[in-house]
């Protein structure tokens, strides 16, 4: 038997191609006779379109065509609501989805108004300047609290008060709990998340082959199958006529799951209309407007505790900025609402949110997907309560953790997957203990901090807990096939954007079929290879598709044993699989290669028994009943310059439990990357809009992604509580690194600068030197 690959730090199958510049990304697709698209985008946030004159642009040499909304005729339609509202009593949801190009009104800066098709992107951009646009500017809806006022301008003329949604979820009776409380603390919090900014922007290449009747689309999407089915419907094609390929994709982090982006309709439409390939590659400037992002919520939250610091209840009322349209439903604010509960016993909960339309780009999930906002609120409330009650910050958390024997633990509200928010498994206290140990919690406060403070150095420690709902349904599928050469093909419907699926899925298959990991060829994101599945989001790829791969590999394993038993005329129990072959146990020389069996299973002559499927292949599906809940604790020591308010992270620790681990190297990478994005969110990245809805920092020079100098060395440790909801026992890990970084920064900075003594709370994220200066000196 070969060494077990599942759980090992296996090198990635996909890396050799990526490292040598041989991997195919969307912009690498070169086709003869290609047209290059550029979009004219609105330069006001809110306005009525009077006229768009494209005459001069059409006349420019090298321009093939210029189109506006009306030219799409019957193909002009608002996009679908991707995620309808969950079944929550009393939910209000006003769906208003984006359109391929604006027709009557523009609702955010960067909304597409016209498309130029030209012989090069250079010429297409030249022609954008030739287009004459007459837009009557309207007052922009920017501020959330003003937006819901009766006299506010409206993003959608028929939605008064800009109410995109209104949801209340409760557990127990908060008012009664508060009445009994020894202590109540309330604050207003603001948490702003930002742009995912993958280094590869979005891009689409569409080719219509009129003779074959085949539309092929290369797209940076995280959800190729839904895109294929949707586009087939949009253009009246049979689904088999549309092939969507998500090749190597340069990072996604959520926004690449959105569909249908206007370009995803217009680019294929143009290819169909002209019978010529079309390429559109979003540039970095467009990315700040044309790709969805996350943004802010304002929470008025209150916590009620007993005298020992045990939580009796939490009440939260918040506003959520959903941008100009809400195709992704309530996922982000529901995540905030649910994830606020964290790893804690909160017997009484009363949470209400209002999602608000604004004249800003569309909000859809970005790594964490609203979880950050909720975690910030509860973690900060606990810090404030700890201070008020004079309880240690780690201790107040410990006292409120859900005990290990309470799982599955039902929070009695509805989660984003429409299922009750129930935690499948967990063991939280050892995670906290481990984080306390690794950060050196006790010695920091008793020795290091006083010593450094005496030297005039301002260091502080933060510690924050979180849970993450991962691996939600509905389902994914996988096809596993042993080829005649003995190598194994695996196809799934999800897309991949760097998560290492080519390797982690290969590890699962390698163990089941006794082959080497490099001999398993995984393909994701090509609808001609596999056309069932939902996509890569919500930390679900490894959990849901991984288990489907496992099921399919198991089924193929059974076929292998069956056919090998026939081959050797022995019992299946006498066989073992390994090193790419099946052997009879204890009989040297009695072995047959998998490839030979594959050929045997697909004979050219002779008869097969009725009911026999050819080949060594199986397609299986996996759908978990509900999501698996991962959890963790981050801790950090930071040094702050008390005059310039710049800071340096001295130590960063993550202890994480995502169930059974497939590949620790890949897992560590996911955690590191998440923390880096969390650090960006906490202290560097902020989308700054002015009162006209103009984004003031639409460049990577001003939207500050952390570099290698801002991200510290991150120490990671793991505990393992397998999920009972899937045979592999795994939970998702994609978003965990990013989730609790905001409250960690706020807490550690407060500690470093002794802000508690000054009665200053840090109740917002992102922070910055400038903001700290304002808060501390005002």
């Amino acid at each position, binding site marked *: 038997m070969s060494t077990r690959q599942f759980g090992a*730090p296996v*090198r*990635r199958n*996909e*890396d*050799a*191609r*990526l*490292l*040598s*510049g*041989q*991997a195919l*990304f969307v*912009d*690498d697709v*070169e086709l003869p006779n290609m047209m290059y698209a550029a979009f004219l985008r609105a330069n006001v946030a809110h306005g009525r379109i009077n006229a768009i004159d494209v005459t001069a642009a059409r006349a420019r040499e090298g321009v093939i065509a210029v189109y506006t909304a009306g030219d799409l005729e019957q193909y002009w339609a608002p996009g679908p609501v991707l995620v309808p509202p969950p079944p929550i009593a009393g939910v209000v949801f006003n769906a208003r989805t984006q359109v391929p190009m604006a027709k009557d009104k523009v609702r955010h800066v960067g909304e597409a108004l016209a498309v130029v098709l030209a012989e090069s992107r*250079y010429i297409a951009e030249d022609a954008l300047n030739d287009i004459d646009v007459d837009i009557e500017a309207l007052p922009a809806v920017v501020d959330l609290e003003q937006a819901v006022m009766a006299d506010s301008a409206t993003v959608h003329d028929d939605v008064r008060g800009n109410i995109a949604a209104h949801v209340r979820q409760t557990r127990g009776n908060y008012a009664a709990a508060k009445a009994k409380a020894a202590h109540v603390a309330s604050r207003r919090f603001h948490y702003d998340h930002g742009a*995912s*900014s*993958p*280094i*590869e*922007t979005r891009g689409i290449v569409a080719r219509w082959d009129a003779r074959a009747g085949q539309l092929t689309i290369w797209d940076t999407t995280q959800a190729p199958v839904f895109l294929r089915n949707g586009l087939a419907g949009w253009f009246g094609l049979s689904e088999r006529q549309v092939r969507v390929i998500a090749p*190597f*994709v*340069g*990072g996604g*982090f959520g926004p690449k799951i959105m569909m249908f982006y206007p370009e995803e309709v217009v680019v294929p439409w143009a290819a169909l209309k002209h019978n010529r390939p079309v390429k559109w590659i979003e*540039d*970095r400037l467009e990315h700040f407007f044309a790709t969805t992002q996350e943004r802010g919520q304002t929470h008025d939250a209150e916590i009620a505790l007993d005298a020992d610091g045990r939580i009796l209840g939490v009440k939260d009322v918040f506003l959520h900025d959903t941008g100009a349209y809400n195709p992704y439903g309530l996922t982000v604010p529901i995540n905030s609402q649910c994830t606020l509960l964290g790893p804690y016993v909160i017997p009484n909960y009363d949470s209400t949110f209002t999602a608000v339309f604004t004249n800003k780009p569309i909000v859809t999930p970005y790594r964490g997907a609203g979880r950050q906002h909720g975690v910030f609120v509860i973690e900060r409330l606990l810090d404030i309560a700890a201070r008020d009650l004079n309880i240690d910050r780690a201790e107040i958390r410990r006292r409120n953790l859900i005990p290990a024997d309470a799982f599955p633990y039902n929070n009695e509200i509805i989660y984003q997957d429409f299922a009750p928010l129930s935690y499948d498994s967990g063991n939280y206290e050892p995670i906290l203990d481990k984080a306390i140990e690794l950060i050196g919690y006790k010695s920091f406060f008793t020795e290091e901090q006083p010593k450094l403070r005496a030297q005039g150095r301002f260091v502080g420690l933060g510690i924050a807990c979180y849970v993450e709902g991962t691996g939600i349904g509905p389902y994914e599928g996988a096809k596993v096939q042993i080829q005649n050469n003995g190598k194994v093909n695996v196809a799934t419907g999800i897309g991949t*954007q*760097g*998560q*290492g699926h080519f390797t982690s899925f290969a590890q699962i298959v390698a163990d089941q079929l006794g082959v080497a990991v490099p001999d398993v060829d995984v393909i994701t994101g090509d609808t001609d290879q596999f056309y069932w599945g939902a996509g890569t989001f919500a930390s679900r790829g490894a959990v849901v598709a991984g288990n489907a791969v496992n099921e399919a590999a198991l089924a193929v394993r059974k076929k292998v044993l069956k056919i090998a038993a026939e081959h050797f005329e022995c019992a299946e129990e006498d066989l073992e699989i390994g090193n790419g072959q099946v052997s009879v146990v204890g009989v040297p020389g009695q072995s047959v290669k998998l490839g030979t069996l594959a050929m045997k299973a697909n004979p050219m002559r002779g008869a097969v028994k009725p009911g026999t499927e050819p080949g060594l292949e199986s397609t299986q599906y996996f759908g978990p009943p509900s999501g698996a809940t991962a959890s963790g604790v981050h801790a950090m020591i930071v040094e702050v310059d008390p005059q310039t308010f710049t800071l340096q992270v001295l130590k960063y620790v993550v202890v994480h439990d995502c169930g059974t681990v497939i590949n620790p*190297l*890949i897992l*560590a*990478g996911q*955690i*590191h*990357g*998440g*923390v*880096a*994005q969390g650090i960006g969110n906490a202290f560097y990245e902020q989308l700054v809009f002015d009162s006209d809805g103009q984004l003031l920092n639409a*460049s*990577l*020079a001003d939207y500050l*992604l952390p*570099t*290698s*100098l801002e*991200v510290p*060395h*991150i120490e990671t440790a793991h505990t393992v509580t397998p999920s009972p909801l899937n045979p592999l026992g795994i939970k998702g890990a994609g978003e965990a*690194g990013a989730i609790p970084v905001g409250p960690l920064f706020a807490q550690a900075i407060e500690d470093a600068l002794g802000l508690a003594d000054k009665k200053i709370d840090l109740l917002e994220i992102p922070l910055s030197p400038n903001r700290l200066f304002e808060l501390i000196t005002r």
Partner: protein
Amino acid sequence: MSTDRHDISVTVNGTVYRRNVEARLLLSDFLRHDLLLAGTHVGCEHGVCGACTVIYDGVAIRSCLTFAAQTDGHDIMTVEGLGTPENLHPLQEAMRECHGLQCGYCTPGVLMTMKVFLEETPSPDEAQIREALSGNLCRCTGYQHIVEAVQLAAQRLQHPSSLQHPTQK
């Protein structure tokens, strides 16, 4: 304005290419779409992200801030010149071993920057690596595994017999 075009002769990865290019053609686009050396990636086109970094006359530069017309008579190395999937450069090999890439989009720029850095700084410490890497944005890895990979590559390039992985000490 009539299109201003120029004849250039430029050496890329040891091959001399003669082309006629429009004055405004960015070197990044020239490499990717004229020479079909698509390993050089484009992330921002304003000189911040570093994905388009190539080695120009021995020096790491942003190809999105250079015009193809300027490269006449010059020597360029792109990621395609560093190693092949079958025969990776020690730096590429170390990146693979240390999981120094996830989506792989920023990776070619990282490799080009680090190749020259290691030639100039054969035994770098972590701080030097982070400083040298600071002009290459990576949104996936948090940089830590890249730093480890560069340390491992440095060891191997200095002592080719040394095969020890830094995290397996």
